[in-house]
């Protein structure tokens, strides 16, 4: 009896040892530069997206790596596999132990990350946010991709081009309470009032970031309101949904569609003609800029006003003493969409 017990013990220990070796080789194989030495390079920038493994944030990583190479700094680009603030806050705390020179985060919740970010600052780490801000007192700089005003205005301008500056419009949002979407809507209404008095938003429908729901809502609305001149889809799920609905109803060219989304999602609709142009910022450049900002923070030469010199992006604007602006939004069309892959 005891003989077989020992056999069991030996097998278990052997298997678990093997497992630990798997874990170890994983660690060494993945990032050899961090396996041994002390702190690696003198400058280490730790950058966190809202989550890893989606095309948008992979695009930012590309830009971040490019900047890290240009500036010769060490970059750690990692985040949770799900868009959850608590997982982010945990990773920030672990990064504090990892001796990052700067931590830059795209926050899933402005307040939930604040305690960890403040702790990082107390530990002498430079802090910043990019893509989505944390509470103002929990970071030194925010790298803003595009102002609400610029996005709202651009969306309306693109739509006006296609409908001669008039008509009634449907807006499909993610949720009625999402702060960025509420802010974009306000700016869109503002732009219409000031520049295109014959344009008006007839209805705002929440698509709940559900593609099928977005398609159904748009279809039903267009059937009930045949005088609709165009549809804005203002999330990366709402826009393809709206375009798909217009396509399924055979209304390409009659009902204009534009909004915010990513190029890979929209390519088929540009090709089919359901969408002519749509708007977003360039996430590659956003990642690139965020690393330049973090580096400037570490070097202690981050400006408080005027412009900030960011490598190949040239001079970008400081729109507040603690806020850098990437620039005007990017308009995608048949002409430039093949240059982007995210």
């Amino acid at each position, binding site marked *: 009896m005891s003989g077989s017990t020992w056999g*069991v013990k030996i097998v278990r220990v052997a*298997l*678990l040892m093997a497992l*630990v070796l798997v874990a170890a080789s994983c*660690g060494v194989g993945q990032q050899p530069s*961090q396996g041994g030495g002390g702190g690696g390079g003198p400058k280490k920038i730790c950058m966190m997206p809202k989550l890893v493994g989606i095309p948008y944030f992979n695009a930012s990583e590309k830009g971040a790596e490019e900047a890290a190479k240009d500036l010769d700094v060490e970059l750690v680009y990692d985040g949770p596999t799900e868009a959850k*603030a608590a997982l982010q806050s945990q990773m920030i*705390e672990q990064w504090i*132990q990892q001796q990052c020179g700067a931590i830059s985060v795209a926050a899933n919740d402005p307040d*939930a990350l604040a305690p960890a970010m403040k702790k990082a600052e107390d530990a002498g780490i430079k802090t910043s946010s990019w893509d989505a801000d944390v509470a103002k007192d929990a970071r030194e700089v925010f790298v803003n991709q595009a102002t609400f005003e610029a996005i709202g205005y651009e969306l309306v301008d693109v739509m006006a081009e296609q409908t001669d500056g008039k008509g009634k419009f449907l807006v499909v949002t993610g949720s009625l309470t999402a702060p960025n979407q509420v802010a974009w809507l306000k700016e869109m209404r503002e732009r219409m009032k000031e520049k295109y008095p014959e344009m008006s938003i007839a209805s705002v429908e929440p698509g709940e970031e559900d593609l099928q729901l977005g398609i159904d809502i748009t279809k039903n609305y267009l059937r009930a309101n045949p005088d609709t001149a165009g549809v804005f889809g203002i999330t990366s799920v709402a826009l393809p949904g709206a375009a798909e609905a217009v396509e399924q109803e055979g209304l390409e060219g009659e009902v204009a569609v534009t909004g915010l989304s990513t190029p890979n999602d929209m390519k088929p609709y540009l090709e089919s003609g359901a969408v002519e142009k749509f708007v977003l910022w360039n996430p590659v450049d956003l990642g690139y800029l965020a690393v330049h900002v973090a580096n400037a923070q570490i070097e202690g030469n981050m400006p408080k006003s005027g412009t900030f010199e960011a490598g190949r992006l040239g001079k970008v604007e400081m729109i507040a003493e603690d806020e850098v602006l990437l620039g005007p939004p990017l308009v995608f069309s048949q002409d430039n969409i093949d240059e982007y892959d995210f």
Partner: protein
Amino acid sequence: MSAATAVLRRLKFSREVVLLGVLIVLLVVMSLLSPLFLTVGNLLNTSRFFVEVGLMALGMTLIIITGGIDLSVGSNLALVSVAVGFSYAADLPLPLAIVFGLVVGLAAGLFNGLFITFLDLHPLVVTLGTFALFQGLAYGLSRAEAVSDFPAWFAYFGQAYFLNVVPGQLFIFILAVVVVWLILSRTRFGRYVYAIGNNEEAAHFSGVPVRRVKLALYSGIGLLVGMAAVIYTSRVYTARGDSGLGLELDVISAVVLGGASIYGGSGTIGGTVLGVLIIATLRNGLVLAGVPSTWQVFVLGVLLLVAVFLNEFFRRREE
């Protein structure tokens, strides 16, 4: 019979020794991978992240020993977090809001227990239902908004350090470990728990109040979830409807890794605590070693599969 139980005891003991060995090997490997790992500051700080999962895992151990399961703990955590945050935002004094949250957690657990015992439904099905139910309630009540303007003292539960190094919540966890361990290994109630897991019907006919024991267990885990929720909410200083989402998997993973059999009848608090520590060590060490999150998930998956395989291997040997 007594010889068999003696062997069983020895096997359980050796299982914990093996887990301890794994933990030590992990500590050595991780410290080789990253010079930052084996520092008092890092090890103590890591404990801030496993207390919430650990508290729930204590309750889950007892439930799994009875052959049951509770999939709703993550959703229940969200519900309690929202209950604390929004009752406070609605002007309930914070101490009362915390007590209210604990009551909500307990009530949610009791709700599970009532369905499971009185309607004689399978815990998997019931808690799968309440997993969605509690989550829906948490989202509905918070309307996807967050509360975060808590007074400074609230940080005590999740952010404070005793003597500047020991995270405050570690004390709560140690106390809970001792209490649950005493209940499971030193009381008649604990023997009932094992008896139900070994053979529920036999336990019933030999006078074990099966329903009452199960009700107490599901309510008890609800209370532990409540405590975890208060710590969690304090740690991120924000009450949100998506708090704790997915934590049920971490909790069940830790318990299974700790050697509790999903078929019921076996499991120990010591094993679970080691399971919690191993997962926490692995997570922390991999982050410090710069292993990307996606690969961390992979490594954890391998670890769990091996653990389940070994448990099954072990169980068949016992029979």
